[in-house]
């Protein structure tokens, strides 16, 4: 589903070059649930953004769903994101002036899906995340956990093949976080490929595999059950 070959990403900051990613080779299969862990600044978000076609790698090749996306222009990448990828962010990124339904509808607006179909589909997704009675609430009228569920509904509304989540529970208390993780597990059970960036071993433990990054390289690959040990091993509990 996701194939990375020699992916590197360098940022130029003034005269300095920061190698956020170097030589990443990885294959994530369809339906896998993968966590990315590592110390702060190790390149976790950058890797997720490369997979999500939000960041152009400076080297290497990548294919998604057997489509080579290397070197595509920005419009083509936008269409790949539209077709294949759903994003969930730590800070939800809901649009405050739109209600929950409006936020969930948004990807369909830009995909040119007719109005009638949109409302129906958005309501369906809100039902999936258990917020069918909150459709006309603005984000400010929802709790953090509810906002993140709206964000997941939005990410899922165009039926993506891959869900990318960067610290999805980072701003939530453990109960709300648990609900979100359960939701992600349910989606994964239905065959969705999920990649989660986290520094929380409790989150990583629920995944099939964990990629541990260090200085932009994959330092270790371990199974989800080894998350607790890794926390002490890499000191990744600090952000």
């Amino acid at each position, binding site marked *: 589903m996701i194939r990375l070959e020699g992916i590197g990403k360098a940022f130029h900051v003034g005269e300095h070059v920061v190698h956020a990613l170097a030589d990443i080779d990885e294959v994530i299969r369809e339906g896998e649930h993968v966590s990315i862990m590592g110390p702060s600044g190790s390149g976790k*978000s950058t890797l997720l*953004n490369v997979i*999500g076609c*939000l*960041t152009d790698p400076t080297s290497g090749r990548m294919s998604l769903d057997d489509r080579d996306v290397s070197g595509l222009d*920005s*419009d083509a990448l*936008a*269409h790949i*994101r*539209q*077709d294949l990828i759903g*994003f969930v*962010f730590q800070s939800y*990124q809901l*649009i405050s*002036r*739109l209600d929950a339904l409006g936020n969930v509808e*948004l*990807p369909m*607006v*830009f*995909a*040119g899906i007719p*109005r009638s179909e949109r409302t129906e589909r958005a309501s369906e997704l809100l039902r999936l995340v258990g917020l069918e009675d909150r459709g006309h609430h603005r984000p400010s009228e929802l709790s953090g956990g509810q906002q993140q569920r709206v964000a997941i509904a*939005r990410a899922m509304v*165009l039926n993506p093949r891959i869900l990318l989540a960067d610290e999805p529970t980072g701003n939530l208390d453990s109960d709300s976080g648990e609900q979100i993780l359960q939701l992600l597990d349910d989606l994964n059970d239905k065959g969705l490929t999920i990649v989660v960036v986290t520094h929380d071993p409790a989150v990583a433990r629920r995944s099939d595999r964990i990629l541990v990054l260090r200085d932009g390289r994959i330092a270790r690959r371990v199974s989800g059950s080894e998350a607790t040990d890794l926390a002490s091993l890499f000191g990744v509990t600090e952000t």
Partner: protein
Amino acid sequence: MTFVDLMRLAFTALIRHPLRAGLTLLGISVGIGSVALLTSLGESARVYIESQFEFIGSDILVILPGRTETTGAIPGIGGAPNDLTLDDAQSIQRSVGRVQLTVPIALGTETVSHGERARQCVIMSTVTDMQDLLELDLVSGSFLPEGDFTRGAPVVVLGSKIARELFPGTNPVGQNARIGDWRMRVIGVTEVRGTHLGVDMDELVLIPVATGMRMFNRTSLTRVMARLTPGADPAAAEVDILALMEDRHDELDVTVVTPGAILGTVSGILDALSAALAGIAAISLIVAGIGIMNVMLVSVSERTPEVGLLLAIGAVRRQIMVLFLAEAALLSLAGGLLGLGGGMAIIQIVGSLYPEFPAATPTWVSGASLSLALIVGIGFGIVPARGATRLDPVVALSRK
């Protein structure tokens, strides 16, 4: 993304900052309002002035004593021209085939009185044919009598307003009026005509030309008006008249003003006026445009994370651009409508204050104002909107 979606996204964004949107809207409405107002006034002035000349008729030439180099200017200031005489007027009518009719005019100012009532009036000394030339109708009595140009009877035709002022409640026809020391018999009263060429026709006092020449002790006419034979070329008629007058006076000492020359001069003045007004309006529009640009820059900067999100959920850059342009267009169009409404309201007020001035907002001005509003909005919105499309999605998303 449908038009409705676009408008909803743009509108909800705008009303989140009502004061900011309101002030920008006010700016653009002042700009567009002044464009609509000044253009309407300019157009109305043109219509008004041209209607004044239409009244004289495009088949009328005016012959003035004296010579000026610039056609269309008012001659007779300085120099000592030969008199323009009644004989000259008659000979033009007789000898110039292209001229059908000439009407001599001598103008003067004198006090007109009846009993206690008196007022200062412009006295137009002329002949019977003037009625035909000015298409004057009478409410009562008759016009100046036909007959010898050189023998003036002590009779007068009063404009309707003068008649009302000097003879309130009675029919002046058959009664006497004084013009200066002259005792005159009122023989007619003209119908209400209003102002033409800056002269209130209802305040005219008409007397036979010979009477006027004696009254004002003049040897020269003030002007001769000549009506062309139907189909005659005014320029050719002008040449004929000048040749005849040169022959009669042994020098070229008259000026012929053609309607084209008058209109040309007037249009020139009006064009300059319009350009000046447009310049003023343009400045206020530029100021309004900068206001829009400023608001859009702030809006893009505030909504940077939103742009990042839209890119992440699959919006292409063109859609982001259209989104922000729609916002600028909505703002400017609303401002344009408000401004146009305000401008039209002021025009209405002007129209009701000066009923004889044809104050109106032409349809093309309304259309042009709104188009201009859109152009300004989109024109000044394009830089901020392009700024939004150039954002890096990851950087945009991480902006707080």
